[in-house]
């Protein structure tokens, strides 16, 4: 069975997120507007007003309430969606942890924006990075079509009985949130059919007045440790599950993204560049240009940031001569990029090859083709045994 061709519309990343959520028929939508996410809330309200979205749309006074409402709706047995960004994500931090601990399969679009400290209404992945230990599944996507498709896949992943975890679908604010691209919108029946397996699985635990249950109880000592272990085990299972869902999505809709990571021309590559989000599109162009010059370079797009795709990365990088990571955020205390820092943890599985961190694109600094060409050149030089600088803040050295 294959999905029929959907309608192609030129829509922004934010609208794509709203379309993705609407197609999954959430029972409750609660979100508070924040730049650059506001359009998601507007679009969902429009769907609701037009009768396309049969959900309870809750007007909230802040992000903390939004997350508490969607988590509660899920605990009561419903499906729920929310969206936020940056300061909004920070403002819901306790509720974010709570949703993960409750194993409430919330799906949230997080439109990446720089985090507080230095005020910046501009793109950066620092918000995603600063919540990496919240127990959520975190994905980062590259373009508007992938936003829509990933939100549908996120519901399949979150609500899977083996997973039962909230999923954050991250996409670059400004670069993708306001970028209009041609996006194929799946038909309602096809989205329903893709999500249908969720209905066949055993029912999740939910609050029911007829059968009293406690949630978030304290003082259970060994029980606490057991629940943490189960949470970590579910995150481990999520890695392969995402690969499976992505494959199934590809067979049905004809579009797939590689699951945890997307590899581009890595098979015979000698050096590899790793990046995530919208920068991956630019990196692909550079890889093609450098290949034409004879440089055997490949690209790994990191789609899953939490849980970290350790096994897939090790397999993709095994036997390569050098690797460079472009991060659109920083890792405080390590003076490098966060994806780079995590890659270093995988290094024993790969072997001792030069690994280099490139920090670029903070606060809407463009990650340009010349920037990525420089990355490829530096990584290539390192692969040839030349001395190299471990961490480079690209725009500061221009």
């Amino acid at each position, binding site marked *: 069975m294959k999905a029929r061709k959907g309608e192609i519309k030129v829509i922004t990343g934010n609208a794509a997120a709203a379309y993705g959520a609407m197609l999954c028929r959430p029972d409750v939508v609660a979100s508070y507007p924040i730049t650059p996410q506001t359009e998601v809330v507007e679009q969902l309200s429009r769907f609701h007003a037009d009768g396309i979205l049969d959900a309870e749309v809750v007007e909230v006074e802040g992000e903390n309430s939004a997350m508490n409402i969607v988590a509660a709706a899920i605990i009561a047995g419903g499906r729920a969606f929310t969206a936020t960004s940056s300061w909004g994500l920070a403002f819901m931090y306790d509720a974010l942890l709570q949703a993960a601990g409750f*194993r409430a399969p919330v799906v949230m679009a997080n439109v990446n924006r720089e985090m507080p400290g230095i005020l910046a209404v501009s793109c950066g992945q620092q918000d995603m990075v600063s919540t990496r230990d919240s127990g959520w599944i975190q994905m980062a996507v590259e373009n508007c079509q992938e936003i829509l498709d990933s939100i549908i896949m996120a519901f399949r992943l979150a609500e899977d009985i083996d997973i039962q975890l909230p999923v954050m679908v991250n996409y670059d604010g400004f670069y993708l949130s306001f970028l209009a691209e041609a996006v194929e919108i799946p038909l309602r029946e096809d989205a329903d059919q893709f999500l249908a397996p969720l209905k066949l699985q055993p029912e999740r635990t939910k609050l029911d007045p007829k059968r009293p*249950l*406690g949630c*978030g*109880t304290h*003082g*259970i000592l060994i*029980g606490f440790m*057991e*629940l943490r272990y189960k949470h970590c085990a579910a995150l481990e299972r999520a890695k392969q599950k995402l690969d499976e869902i992505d494959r199934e999505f590809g067979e049905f809709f004809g579009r797939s993204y590689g699951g945890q990571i997307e590899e581009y021309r890595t098979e015979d590559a000698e050096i590899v560049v790793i990046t995530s989000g919208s920068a991956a599109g630019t990196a692909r162009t550079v890889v093609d240009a450098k290949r034409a010059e004879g440089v055997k370079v490949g690209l790994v797009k990191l789609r899953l940031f939490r849980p970290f795709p350790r096994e897939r990365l090790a397999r993709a990088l095994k036997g390569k001569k050098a690797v460079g990571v472009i991060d659109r955020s920083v890792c405080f205390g390590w003076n490098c990029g966060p994806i780079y820092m995590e890659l270093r943890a995988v290094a024993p599985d790969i072997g001792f090859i030069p690994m280099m961190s490139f920090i670029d694109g903070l606060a809407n600094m463009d990650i340009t083709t010349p920037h990525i060409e420089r990355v490829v050149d530096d990584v290539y030089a390192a692969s040839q045994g030349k001395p190299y600088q471990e961490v480079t803040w690209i725009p500061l050295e221009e």
Partner: protein
Amino acid sequence: MVIMREFTKYEAGWSDADELLLCLDTGSWRTKRPVLDKEKCNYCGLCALYCPPQCMVNMNDYFTPNLDFCKGCGICAKECPRGAITMVPEGEFSHEGAKG
């Protein structure tokens, strides 16, 4: 890894109200214990209504606290219109249940 002795069958922090939640030994937190004078009790049920963790057990002609669960907050004693419940320091009990 296999969990040797599973505490809960659930994936999340859900606990069965009868089997798990009330089995927590919150009684050990108590410094004072509610003691009922059955002569004074007229079975009005206000203590059970006010008890925050709802641990008053209905004995059909009076209510008595479940001491495995009662944290000793004293609200039942305060609310009882007939003064039938007295909060007695735990130190006055040599062993569980008996005073002496």
